[in-house]
């Protein structure tokens, strides 16, 4: 079962399906019992700074396992923002349309609604974490943690783009310092 054949679950509130589907031995995300109150196009009430999308076509990867195992925590940490999980079918369709993304999923895309309302999609409007590029469970977990930390700490940011670029610079420099000090490679990207 795909990460979110769960999407339909959002509306159906059915009991969880068996997790040992033939497609993968990764357990499926649980079905949930209720819906987030929505307004208009499904945006939860209250101002959400971000919209989070998860695209996962179902590769049996370490990153996928880590995402599934930690999804509940991510969900709890990002309560203010709606998370949209594309069904496996929708994710595959998405990958077929954007072939260069194949193998990079699970992908977590974060749309900055503030930036989208200001400047549309022409300029900066969010960021994307290609979790599937992280090959080991440890790397994937660190990536997810960095993702959650970044969203929580930058929720009120006036310039999210600058914050992201600063984060990337900082990570690069930290890596360099660790090389210089002969420490083990840390991380997100390593």
């Amino acid at each position, binding site marked *: 079962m795909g990460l979110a054949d*769960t999407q339909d679950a959002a509306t159906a509130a059915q009991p969880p399906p068996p997790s040992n589907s033939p497609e993968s031995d990764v357990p499926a995300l649980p079905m949930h019992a209720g819906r987030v109150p929505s307004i208009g196009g499904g945006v939860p009430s209250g101002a959400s700074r971000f919209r989070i999308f998860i695209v996962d076509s179902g590769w049996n990867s370490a990153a996928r396992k880590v995402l599934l195992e930690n999804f509940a925590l991510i969900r709890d940490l990002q309560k203010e923002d709606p998370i949209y999980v594309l069904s496996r079918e929708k994710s595959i369709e998405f990958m077929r349309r954007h072939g260069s993304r194949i193998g990079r999923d699970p992908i977590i895309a974060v749309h900055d609604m503030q930036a989208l309302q200001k400047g549309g999609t022409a300029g900066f409007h969010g960021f994307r974490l290609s979790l599937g590029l992280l090959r080991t469970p440890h790397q994937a977990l660190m990536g997810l943690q960095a993702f959650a930390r970044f969203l929580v700490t930058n929720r009120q940011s006036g310039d999210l783009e600058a914050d992201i670029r600063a984060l*990337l610079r900082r990570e*690069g420099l930290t890596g360099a310092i660790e090389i210089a000090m002969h420490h083990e490679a840390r991380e997100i990207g390593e």
Partner: protein
Amino acid sequence: MFDRVTEVFSLVLGALALGYLVYEIDRRQRKLHDIWNVLDGEDAILTASLEDMVESGELQPYAGATLA
């Protein structure tokens, strides 16, 4: 003569170490940018298609709370 050779050798080693450091920083930066992408005009179509799915109600917020 021996001092001179040692000096040149040290210089080469230093240059190699510095080169490796620069290479490693660049490699890590590239990888980081590969993993963490900023969404901009190049992603407009992609973003629009996801937003359209939300606006049309095709995608609903996932409300799962815990893993079984």
